C-alpha cells in the first residue's frame, strides 16, 4: 500500500497502465479462458511451477510478460515499471492494439458475483488502543495499525425479511444473517486472512432490531482452547425501504485476542478492536469484491449448515 501511495508510482499507473487487483486464491484455480490467459502470463515469470502466483505483473493484452516484481519498496517497483514501459515502446503496433473476444462462461467454482437484487455492506476493522481516555487507532509504527476492508453480502429476500421484522415492531435478527455476520465478519483481518469462526465457537450471541430500526447485540466467540476470541457489543441502525436497504450502520466494539495461521503478530492479551459496517452503493469495482468468507459459497449463504 505504501508503494501505491508514492506519487510517482501513482502517476505512472494512472497514465500509462490499465490497473487490476485480483485475489490469487480464485485466479490461479480458474479453469476458463480467464484462467488460461493468466496462466500464460505466469508461465513466463519466476512464479511458473510455484504454488502461489502472488506478485506484481506487467503484460500485454496478448499475454506477453513485460515485468514481474514482488518487492515492497517503491524504488524496485518503479524500476520494474519503467523497464516494462521501455519494452512496451519497442513492441510492434500489432502487439499493442489487438481485438479481444468475449471469454465465454466463468468457472463458477472460482468466480463469485453478487446475486441479482443483492446489496453490499462494507465492513471496516481496526485494532484500537486507549490513549488520552478514548479509543484510538494504533500508533503509526505498530503492526496492524491499518484498517482492513471486507464486504458483507445480503440477498434480496433477506432484506425484505429485515424490513418486515422492523415493520412488525422488531425482534431477533434471523439466524442466517446473524451467523453470517458472526462467522465471517466479526474477525480480525488487520494483519492477513483470518480463519472463519465455527458455529460451536459462538458461545454467546444476541442481535435484535426494534420497530424503529435500532440494532443492539452482544457476543462472545472463542476457539475451543480459548486461545483466540472476540467479545463485545453491536449497536446500530437498519432501514429498509421497498425491500431495499437504505441504511445499514453497525458499530462493533469489543476485545479480541489471539491469532490464526495467517494473522500472526497479534498484540498479547485481550485488546480493543472496532468495526464499522456501512451500506455501499457498489459503484466502484473495489466495492464489489466478494466477501473473504465466500470462498465456500454454500457455507456463506447458509451458515447454519
Amino acid at each position, binding site marked *: 500500500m505504501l508503494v501505491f501511495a508514492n506519487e510517482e508510482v501513482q502517476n505512472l499507473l494512472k497514465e500509462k497502465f490499465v*490497473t487490476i487487483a485480483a485475489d490469487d486464491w480464485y485466479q490461479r484455480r480458474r479453469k476458463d479462458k480467464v484462467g488460461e490467459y493468466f496462466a500464460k502470463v505466469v508461465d513466463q515469470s519466476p512464479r511458473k511451477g510455484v504454488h502461489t502466483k502472488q506478485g506484481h505483473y506487467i*503484460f500485454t493484452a496478448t499475454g506477453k510478460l513485460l515485468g514481474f516484481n514482488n518487492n515492497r519498496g517503491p524504488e524496485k517497483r518503479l524500476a520494474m515499471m519503467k523497464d516494462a514501459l521501455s519494452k512496451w515502446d519497442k513492441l510492434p503496433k500489432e502487439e499493442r492494439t489487438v481485438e479481444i473476444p468475449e471469454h465465454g462462461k466463468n468457472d463458477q467454482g472460482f468466480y463469485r458475483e453478487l446475486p441479482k437484487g443483492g446489496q453490499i455492506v462494507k465492513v471496516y476493522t481496526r485494532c484500537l488502543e486507549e490513549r488520552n481516555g478514548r479509543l484510538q487507532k494504533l500508533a503509526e509504527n505498530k503492526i496492524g495499525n491499518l484498517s482492513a476492508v471486507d464486504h458483507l453480502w445480503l440477498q434480496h429476500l433477506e432484506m425484505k425479511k429485515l424490513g418486515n421484522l422492523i415493520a412488525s415492531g422488531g425482534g431477533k435478527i434471523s439466524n442466517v444473517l446473524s451467523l453470517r455476520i458472526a462467522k465471517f465478519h466479526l474477525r480480525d483481518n488487520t494483519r492477513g486472512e483470518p480463519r472463519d469462526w465455527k458455529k460451536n465457537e459462538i458461545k454467546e450471541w444476541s442481535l435484535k432490531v426494534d420497530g424503529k430500526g435500532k440494532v443492539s447485540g452482544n457476543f462472545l466467540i472463542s476457539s475451543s482452547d480459548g486461545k483466540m476470541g472476540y467479545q463485545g457489543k453491536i449497536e446500530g441502525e437498519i432501514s429498509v425501504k421497498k425491500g431495499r436497504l437504505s441504511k445499514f450502520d453497525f458499530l462493533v466494539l469489543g476485545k479480541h485476542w489471539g491469532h490464526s495461521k495467517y494473522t500472526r503478530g497479534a498484540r498479547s492479551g485481550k485488546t480493543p478492536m472496532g468495526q464499522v459496517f456501512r451500506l455501499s452503493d457498489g459503484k466502484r469495482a473495489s466495492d464489489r469484491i466478494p466477501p473473504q468468507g465466500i470462498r465456500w459459497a454454500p457455507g456463506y449463504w447458509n451458515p447454519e449448515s
Partner: protein
Amino acid sequence: MSSSGKQSELDIGWLEGCVREYKLEMKNLVQITLIGLAVLGARADEVVVKEIIPSKAESTWLEIDWKTDLWEARKEAARTGKPIYLWEMDGHPLGCV
C-alpha cells in the same frame, strides 16, 4: 388551606403542590440528563467510527482506477493501447488499506 385562604399548620395541600412541581422538575431533569448522555454517547461513537474507517490520507492509493476483472482489463488494454499492471495477492489486495 383554611376557609380564610391562609395556610394553616394542619393544611398540607400547598405542600403536595410543591412536591408535584418538584417531581415534575426532577422528571424533566432526568429526561434532559438522559438526552445529554445519549448525545454525548452518539458523539463518542462518531469519534470512534472516524478512528476505524480509513482516513483520506490512508486511501490515496484507491484513487487509482483498480479493476477487478482480468478480462475487462485485457479488453481495455487492447482498446486503449496500454500495458496491464496486475497486483495479485492471496486474499484480495483491495481488502487491505
